[in-house]
């Protein structure tokens, strides 16, 4: 039982990282843009959040932690959005190929973050930003309520914000005119254009805001999950691809993020906790194999959705295609 609790306490924060990444990507893909630059964007967000918090702590005499958190959030969002802006300028305005642009953005984001990451730390390795303590602040009263309180309320505020975000996005896509317009752009931009929707503006905004949200994933990884340490962040790229997998897994529905992301967290940590729960020991080569489970599950979901051909489970119809009004 103990192990199971420890597993949950590990899976939920992990799920939150990719929940942010995937939520941003869903927003982007709903506008018909398949942004394979998500790993790079998460890098940018994580780096900007960390760098701003770290430099502020170092510079200010009496750092105000609440301000520091706000600053980190703002910078992570802005950095992600800049990544999204590069992507949308190239793919929407200049109509470059989306897959290729995304991959280039991943290379670029990874390069910028790691290069300047070392630069900011200025030779010091394993430097911690103390703001992680604020990020990890538990709810004062509820998290004390025994095991259940721990499991439900034992996380930093960004976990709950992520849940609200997923619900909010669901309402946005299904209940608001803007959300419906956005989906129209992703399904059939020509029709959307004909009905007076500004396709370019929608694509730009959805991509930039989506990228900003994905940036929070990187921020959460560095400043909460990784306890404010920048040095060991080679993992962000793998997380970015996992976030992309999660988008497919949820069949482009934000509400499915709520359980999908935490399920992925469970699957990711399967290799460490399942043997304990079952009381067996497994060889280390088996743990290597078990780590592929999230990806295999995603492939299965991808195949099943294409087999069943249910209309509501399909990707946005114009996903990956550039739109040019005069192309008919």
């Amino acid at each position, binding site marked *: 039982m103990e192990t199971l609790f420890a597993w949950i306490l590990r899976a939920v924060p992990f799920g939150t990282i990719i929940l942010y990444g995937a939520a941003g990507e869903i927003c982007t893909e709903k506008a018909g843009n398949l942004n394979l630059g998500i790993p790079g964007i998460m890098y940018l967000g994580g780096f900007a959040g960390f760098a701003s918090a770290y430099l502020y702590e170092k510079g200010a005499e009496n750092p105000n932690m609440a301000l520091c958190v706000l600053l980190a959030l703002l910078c992570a969002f802005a950095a992600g959005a800049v990544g999204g802006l*590069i992507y949308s300028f190239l793919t929407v305005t200049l109509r470059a190929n989306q897959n290729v642009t995304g991959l280039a953005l991943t290379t670029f984001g990874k*390069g910028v973050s790691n290069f300047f990451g070392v630069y900011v730390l200025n030779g010091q390795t394993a430097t911690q930003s103390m703001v992680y303590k604020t990020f990890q602040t538990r709810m004062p009263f509820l998290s004390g309520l025994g095991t259940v309180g721990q499991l439900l309320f034992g996380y930093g505020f960004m976990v709950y914000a992520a849940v609200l975000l997923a619900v909010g996005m669901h309402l946005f896509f299904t209940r608001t005119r803007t959300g419906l317009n956005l989906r129209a752009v992703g399904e059939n931009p020509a029709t959307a254009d004909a009905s007076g929707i500004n396709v370019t503006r929608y694509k730009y905004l959805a991509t930039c805001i989506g990228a900003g949200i994905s940036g929070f994933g990187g921020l959460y990884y560095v400043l909460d999950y990784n306890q404010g340490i920048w040095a060991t962040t080679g993992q962000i790229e793998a997380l970015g691809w996992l976030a992309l997998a999660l988008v*497919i897994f949820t069949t482009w529905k934000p509400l499915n993020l709520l359980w999908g992301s935490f399920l992925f967290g469970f699957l990711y940590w399967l290799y460490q906790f399942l043997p304990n729960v079952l009381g067996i020991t497994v060889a280390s*080569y088996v743990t*290597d194999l078990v780590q592929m489970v999230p990806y295999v599950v995603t492939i299965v979901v991808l195949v099943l959705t*294409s087999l069943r051909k249910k209309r509501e489970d399909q990707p946005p119809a114009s996903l990956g295609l550039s739109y040019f009004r005069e192309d008919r």
Partner: protein
Amino acid sequence: MKNSHSGREPIARIVKRGEPSFRLKVVVRACAVLLALLLDAGFIYFVTGLNPVDVYVTMFNGTFGTLMRFQWALRDFASLLLIGVALAPAFKMRFWNTGAEGQVLMGGLASAFVMIRFGGIVPSGLLFTMMLLMSVAAGALWGVIPAFFKAHFSTNETLFTLMMNYVAIQIVASCVTVWRGQASGLGKLNTKTKAGWFPQIWGQRSTINVILVVVFVFAMFLYLRYSKHGYEISVVGESQNTARYAGIHVGKVIIRTMILSGALCGLTGFLIVAGRDQTISVNTAGGDGFTAIIVAWLAKFNTFYMALISFLLIFLNKGAGEIASAYNLNSYAADIIEGIILFCILGSEFFIRYRLVFGGTKGKEALR
């Protein structure tokens, strides 16, 4: 005309060009590379305060400084280019094979398996043949799985092949764990017998890789341009409906082409293991599988352009590495420089396909 409904007129309109001339293509792309070099110089100056011209000279030395450096650059060039060549038929068919990384890894893994299992037991000619066949088969298998589902159920291949990469990575990680046993790393395989290592030619084991790449660049060019298969691929890529109408079995073409693409990726894995690394790890493909996607796309499936772009990227990469060690920067500078140049080339395609018409719609242009 619908001027009446808004007073504002766009500053420029976008008009699609007809067939762009060769001169235009060259000029636009040269401008893109030039712009990228300027931006990179700006970045280098901003970070280091060094004279960018000096830095570019240092960069040049990364590839051309010594014979050995040049040979190493050629070796990496060969791997990148061969993956690009492998992707060409798939991309020409508009099949987004983002799984090259995994296909290369599976090929490399098969080679390493043969080296470990049969190295020193069978004669070297047979050993190389087995390595070749196994790695080609492994790569083809990894490529044909997504193709099968694409052909029969139109499963999204971009995402499927992407996920297959990570499955491959974990399989390699698992095998490496088994093979290394108690040791901390796998190290080079068969160090005593050197079984399964390519012989040294001109001082490098990778010479065979370079020669083979040249062969494949020509062969793939001819295959795509002059063979019946190549024609079918391009028809399927242009329009699947047209292909069906013309009596081409679309599913068959997709599966056949992906077997070819995967097999060539697997072959690359074999060449990397036998001619470069003499071992296998999750970094054997080292991101080349992704970079090659960009190479293949930018070259518009023309293998000779691919060679040019691959060389440019390897040159920049080696150069950035050289700058990094010369000026105490970290090697991630290479990723930034590469990213900037890719953005510029990608963006420049726009000016080849379209032209901007300045001035309002009231001008002569609108009357045509």
